[in-house]
């Protein structure tokens, strides 16, 4: 589905189906991540053994896909869980490891798989249910970035760690609207801490808020007297076209991962974008918390990338 979407030309590799000759969706997700990490390292013209740390995560229980993917990598590894904000979180931690002098080169990666995630969080995919219009479609994909102490690529110049914001939304189909306040809060603190204005950035991207969540972020900022609508976009609104019936857009770790590694990074390298703020957004509920009728705690992490 992603391969038929709006950004198809920017992906390094498109699988023909959601199994790709694996015996399960989870195995497919693992192979995707392993391939993404190896390709990112290869593109950076270094060897896997040059990588000091791998920081990665996904959506499944106990980071299943990630752990099986990293098994084949054989480098020191830290599992990251920030739900759909995992890539931004990994980049944030990875860049501080480098800045602190604890590493020269790290890989940050994230993946998600629609069928595997649906099975865990909602219904089995073969069950004939009608998805509500506010729901989003979990992206099947994986993205990896290499962050190095030296090099010519874009630089991570600032990052803001988010705090958990919970506005009491309980509907697990409305994750974008649940996450929007967390994204707005992190953005607010980022501007406050760094002294930068929203117009400092060419583009501000949130991870996977979808069309409804994106509108809510703009609303929340409008209420504070800040206009965000000119240079703000959501990765979840960029992957699928209207006729793909994804309803409110895309979600999942891979939403920001494939848009950042495929599309945004390429535009940065082509000098079409110079200053970008990537805000990974994650809803930190579990299947158990949903069954116990808890609301959805959400988080967002911001990473500023400049060329």
């Amino acid at each position: 589905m992603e391969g038929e979407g709006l950004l198809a030309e920017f992906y390094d590799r498109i699988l023909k189906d959601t199994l790709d000759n694996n015996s399960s969706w989870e195995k497919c997700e693992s192979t995707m991540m392993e391939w993404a990490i190896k390709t990112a390292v290869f593109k950076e013209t270094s060897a896997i053994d040059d990588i000091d740390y791998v920081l990665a995560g996904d959506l499944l229980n106990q980071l299943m896909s990630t752990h099986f993917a990293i098994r084949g990598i054989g480098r020191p590894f830290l599992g990251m869980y920030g739900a759909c904000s995992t890539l931004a979180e990994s980049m944030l931690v990875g860049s501080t490891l480098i800045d602190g002098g604890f590493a020269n080169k790290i890989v940050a990666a994230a993946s998600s798989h629609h069928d595997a995630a649906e099975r865990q969080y909602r219904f089995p995919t073969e069950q004939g249910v009608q998805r509500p219009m506010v729901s989003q479609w979990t992206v099947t994909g994986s993205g990896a970035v290499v962050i190095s102490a030296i090099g010519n690529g874009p630089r991570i110049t600032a990052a803001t760690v988010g705090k958990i914001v919970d506005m009491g939304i309980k509907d697990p189909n409305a994750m974008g609207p649940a996450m929007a306040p967390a994204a707005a809060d992190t953005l607010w603190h980022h501007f406050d801490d760094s002294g930068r204005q929203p117009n400092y950035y060419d583009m501000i991207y949130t991870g996977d808020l979808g069309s409804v969540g994106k509108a809510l972020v703009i609303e929340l900022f409008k209420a504070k007297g800040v206009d965000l609508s000119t240079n703000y976009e959501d990765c979840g609104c960029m992957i699928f076209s209207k006729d793909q019936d994804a309803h409110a857009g895309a979600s999942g770790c891979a939403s920001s991962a494939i848009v950042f590694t495929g599309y945004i990074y390429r535009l940065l390298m082509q000098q079409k974008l110079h200053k970008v703020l990537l805000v990974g957004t994650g809803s930190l509920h579990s299947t158990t918390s949903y069954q116990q009728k808890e609301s959805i705690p959400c988080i967002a992490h911001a990473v500023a990338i400049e060329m």
Partner: protein
Amino acid sequence: MFDSKVSQTEQQQYQEKFEQLKPKTPILKNVIWAFIVGGLICMLGQFFMNYFMSLGFSNKEAAGPTSVVLIFLSALFTGLGVYDELGRLAGAGSIVPITGFANSIVADNKVLFLPRHQL
């Protein structure tokens, strides 16, 4: 933007804002689809029922084999990946009949069948 502890009024205000922006469910379209598909499934059931009754079963006796056939067909089309596409359009129209129940049972167990199917 928010205090470390979000107040209940803030939560309520936000949820109201969300309700305003929430995309509307296309109820009329869904109802029409549910009516047509649900009706067709029931018609199919009636077709089998009449067939079994023509074989000499009484009205009560024909109900058993009719459900069995519908459950089998639903399970088959779930396995073929057709029933969930139907469900996406028809909603309650394909969930409420006995075929919807068969679909949910088979969908839940498909994980067990998948690896064997791949071999």
